[in-house]
């Protein structure tokens, strides 16, 4: 129980400081919207073919926006040696990691919740026909992005080129997760439910989440403390 309370305490701390400063969330949200706008110049945004790539566009925007949040996650603790204090505190590294991941998750899901309707309006897409399943895909894939991103955020926090290193290291690892998310979202936005072969993608997404959450929890001690 203490473990869960520690996770929630860290997550609450991160969310509180983010809501007070809004530095990451403002940047991330406007960045996501700018990307959605830029995509409209890359191809005809009103054509029928947009539906076929809708999932891909959406997840590219989310993945780009996510990096801005994830970059701040551990970097925020560098000032005044906060990270050393957190490491020295009675909170074990896995709880610290899960707390931070949870805070990032909430922020990223929030950004997605804003972007999705905007996306629907901009591109004239009816995205809510299978809302339940779309939300499921969104929640699963975002957890994948968050958990991998938070590990790499911790991994790169002390590097000189932190802002550049994070996306460079994180995206290749995220490819299976993003591919599943893109594929499933495209199907759902096209108005079809997830059936048959596409269930395999859903399983892949769940497997990815489970394996990388476990790995992260096991490895985070080594990353943060050594």
């Amino acid at each position, binding site marked *: 129980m203490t473990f869960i309370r520690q996770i929630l305490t860290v997550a609450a701390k991160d969310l509180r400081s983010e809501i007070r400063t809004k530095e990451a969330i403002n940047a991330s949200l406007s960045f996501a919207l700018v990307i959605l706008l830029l995509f409209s110049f890359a191809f005809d945004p009103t054509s029928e073919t947009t539906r076929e790539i809708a999932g891909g566009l959406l997840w590219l925007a989310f993945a780009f926006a996510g990096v801005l949040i994830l970059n701040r996650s551990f970097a925020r603790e560098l000032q005044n040696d906060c990270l050393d204090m957190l490491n020295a505190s009675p909170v074990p590294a896995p709880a610290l990691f899960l707390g931070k991941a949870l805070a990032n998750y909430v922020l990223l899901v929030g950004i997605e919740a804003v972007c999705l309707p905007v996306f629907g309006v901009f591109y004239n897409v009816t995205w809510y026909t299978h809302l339940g399943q779309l939300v499921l895909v969104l929640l699963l894939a975002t957890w994948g992005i968050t958990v*991998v991103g938070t*590990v790499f955020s911790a*991994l*790169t926090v*002390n*590097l*000189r*080129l932190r802002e550049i*290193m994070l996306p*460079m*290291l994180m995206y*290749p*690892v995220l*490819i*299976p*997760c993003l*591919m*599943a998310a893109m594929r499933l979202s495209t199907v759902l936005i096209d108005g079809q439910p997830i059936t048959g*072969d596409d269930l*395999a*993608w859903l399983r*892949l997404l769940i*497997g*990815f989440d489970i*394996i*990388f959450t476990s*790995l992260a929890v096991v*490895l985070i001690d*080594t*990353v943060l403390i*050594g």
Partner: protein
Amino acid sequence: MGLRDKIMIGLGALAAVLLTRNIWVMLTGLPDEAFQGAIFRIIFFHVPAAFTCFLCFFLALVAGVVYLVRKNLQWDAFAVSVTEVGLAFGAINLISGMIWARIIWGIWWTWDWRLTSMLVCWLLYAGYLVLRRAIEETTERARLGAVMLILNFSVVPFVFFSIKWFRTQHPQPVLFGDGKMDEIYRTMLYGNWVPLLLIAAVLVMLRMRQENQQREIDALRRAAHSF
């Protein structure tokens, strides 16, 4: 000349002899493949290079895990050496495949699952080298590098399965799958893996020595600065 040098030279010489013999047999002893003609011989380098590449990546994982347990920097030197050699063989695999594809398919690149997966794996391990470059402190570099190797290797099966679910254009696996490969070709395929492995071993030994010397130089430099 130490024992290590003798072993390296011996292995290298053996590799050179075997490779010369294999290329000779490939060019003079083996008949052209019925459909592809002469170009099919690229497979004798293409496939063993992929085997070597993934063997190297697997050894890098082992080295990373052992480093985290033992904290012996020799294992870190081994991890980085074996990754670099793996990337070199991965590049051989990709480039030889592209040359083959240009002639048989008429295109340099296609987003087939095997090509895409190989490219993604290559990028994953290139990322490991970039990460190492950015960290100066030796033990921190070794520690974070080892973590990255574990994460990288865990995603490799995901990459292969997920990308496989897209349609494929690559010739079906001829060793374990439905495809058939004549016995003489198969013998040559595995036979040519031996010299490539020997070359990889020599390169890893060389690179490891260089890595250890580099670490010594860095330590000396730091000691000199601290005076």
